[in-house]
């Protein structure tokens, strides 16, 4: 996944928007639509609410654009706004599980992977199959919120560890711990399921 024109170009666009070229805002945010939506969906777990929160987050970003100083990357700033928006909505609706924000489940024991004798690579082409995509989506949904946020930013959106920490306003060490646990939890759940769906493996068993 390539991230479009980060850094200097974005700062120039932002300056132009603030000077009145507001239509440039559309182009400025286009590369981040997916990240912002994924984070609001991760939090709200409902497509319609997530879409509305994402729209609201982009509007807030526009209204507060002057306060963006470029210390963070624009994309991580947007993700922080999106998460704030989604969490505010949860709190407003009284549905927030406060422990999911305050709790530090990383201190509670070790996660173990699924034990395998061997692994046959699942090629990307397998994602053409709806059932495989569905398995991956369900596995992500099954993660605790804190782990899912980190995993989505780092491994799905491919932010660096430092950028992930910045977007979530947590430390780099915390990102590493949560990322490790998320990855192992996903391996534990998915490896046996995917192995079962691997066409090569199935053919092998039939023969």
């Amino acid at each position, binding site marked *: 996944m390539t991230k479009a024109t980060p850094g200097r170009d974005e700062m120039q666009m932002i300056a132009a928007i603030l000077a009145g070229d507001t239509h440039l805002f559309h182009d400025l945010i286009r590369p981040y639509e997916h990240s912002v939506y994924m984070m609001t969906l991760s939090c709200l777990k409902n497509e319609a609410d997530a879409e509305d929160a994402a729209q609201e987050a982009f509007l807030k970003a526009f209204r507060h654009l002057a306060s963006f100083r470029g210390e963070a990357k624009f994309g991580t700033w947007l993700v922080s706004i999106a998460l704030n928006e989604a969490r505010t909505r949860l709190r407003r609706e009284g549905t927030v599980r406060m422990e999911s924000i305050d709790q530090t489940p990383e201190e509670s024991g070790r996660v173990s992977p*699924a034990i395998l004798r061997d*692994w046959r690579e699942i090629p990307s082409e397998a994602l053409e199959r709806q059932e495989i995509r569905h398995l991956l989506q369900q596995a992500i949904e099954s993660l605790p919120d804190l782990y899912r946020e980190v995993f989505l930013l780092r491994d799905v959106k491919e932010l660096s560890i430092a950028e992930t920490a910045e977007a979530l306003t947590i430390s780099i060490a915390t990102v590493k711990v949560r990322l490790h646990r998320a990855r192992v939890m996903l391996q534990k759940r998915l490896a046996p399921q995917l192995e079962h769906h691997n066409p090569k493996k199935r053919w092998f068993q039939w023969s």
Partner: protein
Amino acid sequence: MVLECKHVWDYISGYLDDTLPQETKELVQRHLDHCEICSAIFDSTRNIIVLMADDRVFELPVGFSERLHARLEREINPGASSTRKP
């Protein structure tokens, strides 16, 4: 020093990100060279991460962008698209 399997598992993530200290990395590498089970665990984890990063897994809802930009246009430039003054 020889690492046991369950200790090696603590380093899966760090190993895949290549953030381990050199010495630890070498210990893990040496373990993986002879342990088929841990190799399969590491390979499957790496494989799952690669699959998850594929754009096909998490798609935006149909029409998301259109609705977003239409709303931005309405709120950023109220009146610009509907009533145009001479």
